[in-house]
């Protein structure tokens, strides 16, 4: 597999089982196959950050990013989540896509992951973190944890409305960041408090580059 087309990758990630009962406090919005494919395809074919790499996914949810990374030949992609039902779903989905050997899953609290996992253990972190709408600051806590784990780059989704704040935070940590895609995040009405059928949110895909790495 020299280059996998974006459409093919998206196709491979379609119909991944998602949460039956998403937990509001964890902001369990499932990453769509389109967005997952977009993140991973860019990470691999523009920046060479997936193939043969140690990849981590913080708050892996349904496991779609882990599975996509495995399909793009990450050496190992480790998904972390606080929710046992998310991990169970990830394991089943990885088995269903035949990538169990390239995926690891660990139950732990991502917000304090620096006390459980040695820092700088991964090349690349990919994640769709909580946007911090339910637990204020959760987005930046995830980002700090990701920057602690990665040696090379972090790919993360953030609400466009928080762009300046997120990028300023990175800058203060000596981390270069760049918006590499602007996406429309179609949040289906997964929760009862959503009145409309779906809600479009403007989201940035930001690539953060660890100090000393090529920008």
């Amino acid at each position, binding site marked *: 597999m020299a280059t996998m087309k974006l459409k093919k990758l998206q196709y491979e990630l379609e119909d991944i089982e998602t949460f039956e009962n998403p937990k509001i406090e964890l902001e369990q919005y499932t990453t769509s196959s389109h967005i997952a494919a977009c993140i991973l395809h860019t990470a691999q074919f523009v920046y060479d950050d997936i193939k043969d790499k140690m990849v981590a996914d913080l708050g892996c949810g349904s496991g779609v990013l882990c599975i996509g990374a495995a399909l793009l030949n990450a050496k*190992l992609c480790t998904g972390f989540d606080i929710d046992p039902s998310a991990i169970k779903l990830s394991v089943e989905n990885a088995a269903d896509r035949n990538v169990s050997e390239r995926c690891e899953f660990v139950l732990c609290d991502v917000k304090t992951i620096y006390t459980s*996992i040695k820092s700088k253990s991964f090349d690349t972190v990919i994640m769709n973190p909580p946007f911090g709408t339910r637990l204020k600051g959760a987005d930046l806590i995830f980002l700090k944890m990701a920057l602690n784990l990665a040696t090379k780059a972090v790919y993360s989704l953030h609400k466009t409305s928080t762009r300046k704040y997120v990028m300023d935070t990175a800058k203060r940590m000596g981390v270069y960041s760049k918006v590499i895609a602007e996406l429309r995040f179609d949040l289906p009405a997964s929760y009862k408090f959503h009145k409309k059928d779906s809600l479009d949110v403007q989201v940035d895909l930001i690539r953060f580059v660890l100090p000393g790495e090529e920008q």
Partner: protein
Amino acid sequence: MKLLTHNLLSSKCLKGVKVGYPLRIVAKDVKISESEYNMEFVLKMIPKLDWKVLVNAAEQIGHGNNLPIELIEDYEDDEELLKKIHHVLMEVEVINGELICPETQRIFPISAGIPNLLLNEDEVS
């Protein structure tokens, strides 16, 4: 759980624990899976590993694989050794068992291949 993952885990998340590393492993079920050997990857991982922890972990679960207790200096040229390391890191998986905190003996279960590092509220440091 692969032994590569074990090499990265600690129980420092527990209240009062200073180092929390390495976690002792008790394995009830071990599975050998297949992973493609990639020399570059193994060479890149070796300097990141705690070698003694890897050797001990492999021995604790009965898959020591004759790894040397001290890593030899010119391991880069020893392909047989690199393949053994690859096997222990990537192919030996603990399916069911326990990880045990070296300081408090708190048990973190491993079930269906998943280590569970979740804590109760009163255990958080």
